[in-house]
């Protein structure tokens, strides 16, 4: 097929809408934020070059920043495995031939779609000392804490709330489960494998791409927790739910220290990058891609 020079280059016109907005609102700001992170800029006047001062201050003289990193690690360590295990469990159950499957699926999936400011306010009410959560705990004989005013329990409260949003992860698992070829189970049965062994030697290996995907998404998501932390606890009590993004927001848009906030943004970016690269590195050891050897 013959294509003229013009025809080749004019293909760029098709991707121009994305390319323009990418250059304007992504690449440009991305480069600008590197520069800003080495300056002192207060939204008025000109940025003043301060070298690496912002980064030095972050790691040596900003207890709140260190606290926000620790808080996020705490959240990640409980939220990510927790939500993955629960979503996996629900997906396995939903994948049975159960009557009314669409109804259950909707019930589990809907909260993850509506997640936002409205449901954050709802959870403030549910987490009150005499609220629904504690009433429920009372049924099994547990005297629930005052979640939102306790620096010990505020983070568990946010994590509990995050489990309500397991729907996205669950749907990914459900799709992956339905993609497992039936003949693998048949072959395993012929070999005399029981429930547990089929689970461990067929289901889990075939699910590793989905498990990997959700792990990446959930870990990246944990570093971007913002709405819940701002609305439900506003970072408190005593900074116990101060997430890195909330710290960035306050620094940049409440104290208008925009150079310093850019430094926070860059540390956040590097953290996300490192976690993602690390995961892709580890993935080679345990993720099974069907037909990968043929490629």
């Amino acid at each position, binding site marked *: 097929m013959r294509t003229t020079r013009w025809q080749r*280059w004019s*293909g*760029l016109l*098709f991707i121009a809408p*994305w390319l323009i*907005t*990418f250059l304007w*609102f992504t690449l*440009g*700001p*991305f480069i*600008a*934020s590197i520069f800003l992170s080495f300056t002192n800029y207060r*939204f008025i006047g000109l940025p003043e070059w301060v070298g690496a001062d912002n980064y030095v201050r972050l790691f040596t003289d900003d207890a709140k920043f260190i606290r926000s990193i620790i808080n996020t690690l705490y959240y990640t360590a409980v939220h990510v495995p927790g939500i993955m295990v629960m979503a996996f469990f*629900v997906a*396995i159950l939903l994948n*049975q*031939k*159960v009557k009314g499957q669409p*109804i*259950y699926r909707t*019930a*589990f999936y809907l*909260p993850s*779609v509506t997640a*936002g*400011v*409205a*449901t954050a*306010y*709802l959870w*403030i*009410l*549910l987490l009150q000392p005499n609220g629904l959560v504690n009433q429920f705990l009372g049924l099994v004989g547990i005297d629930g804490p005052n979640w939102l005013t306790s620096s010990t329990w505020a983070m568990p409260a946010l994590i509990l709330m995050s489990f*309500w949003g397991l729907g996205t992860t669950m749907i990914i698992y459900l*799709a*992956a489960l339905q993609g497992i070829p039936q003949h693998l*189970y048949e072959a395993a*049965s012929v070999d*005399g*494998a*029981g*429930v*547990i062994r*089929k*689970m461990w030697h067929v*289901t889990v290996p075939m699910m590793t*791409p989905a498990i990997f995907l959700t792990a990446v998404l959930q870990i990246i998501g944990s570093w*971007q927790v*913002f709405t819940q932390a701002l*609305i439900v606890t506003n970072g408190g009590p005593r900074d116990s739910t101060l997430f890195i993004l909330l710290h960035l927001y306050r620094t940049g848009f409440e104290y208008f220290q925009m150079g310093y906030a*850019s430094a926070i*943004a*860059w540390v*956040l*970016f590097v953290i996300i*990058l490192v976690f*993602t690269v690390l995961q892709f590195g580890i993935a080679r050891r345990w993720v099974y*891609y*069907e037909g990968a050897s043929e490629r």
Partner: protein
Amino acid sequence: MRHTVVGRAHTAGTSAASGLGAPLGGSLESPQTALSGKPITVRSTSVRVLRALTRTLTYLVLLGGSVMFAIPFVYMVRWSFMTTGQVYDPDLFWPFPMAWENYTYVWANHPVPWWLLNSSVVTFIGVVAGTFSSCVVAYGFARLDFPGNRVLFIVLLSTMMLPLHVTIIPIVIIFRELNWLDTLWPLIVPGLGGGAFSIFVLRQFFMTIPIELDEAARTDGASRIGILFRVILPLSKPAIATVAALSFIANWNEFFLPLIVLNSPERITLPVGLRYFAAGQYTEQLHTFQMAVAMIAVMPIIVVFFFAQRQFVRGITLTGIKG
């Protein structure tokens, strides 16, 4: 002969009891039965009991879990229809008569109509223009051989890993220079060129459409734009619907950016507006009003979700998570 029968019975037993991973029983037995030519009737009582038990437990957990996941919504509705005095009445589950005046009050006395309008404008343009652009761009990446196609596609993929938060400060400075602060432009313009995720999903889908169809259309004299509109898009309706549905949710729920760029009470969107009712978190009156506004914010999502449920679920498979 005897040996094989024992083997089969065992197989049937495990598959019946499985319940994990595989759909319960059924399909595993039929091929075996077909091979032996005789239906298998050997099944011990313990297996049947175990099977019944697994099924009962499955239903119990699913039912209990569904109720737990749905109850917060019930509480939201319930509170939105309560009067001041009813909120902390432990004996009252559902208010009669329902206090519709919560809705009429917030509608009349707060800029709720403005918030709804602003959210609707941003979401409508975001979904329609964003999805349209995503289609055009995805077609470019999927079908056209321009210089830098592969490199730019990798760039597009890597932007999915770059959250808006990292670049938010220069972005806000850009909006200030454009005099766009406290207007809806910052929420509209960046999305006009299509979203990285939408483009990615659509591009993957377009790649599955046989190229022969393009070539046939070209022989008939169709231009590249003609191929896009008459061949690719009509075949991609499910993928487009999925992208549009996900884009609706993302636009409607967007909070971080409007929180930063919008200020005036009548210029904010619904999620930001909800914060207006947070001032006195611990007075009942505000609770009921707040839940009424929360309902107004959540209802459109629920409606869209019920109409487009298949699209949401299909979206997951479309992204090609199998690698």
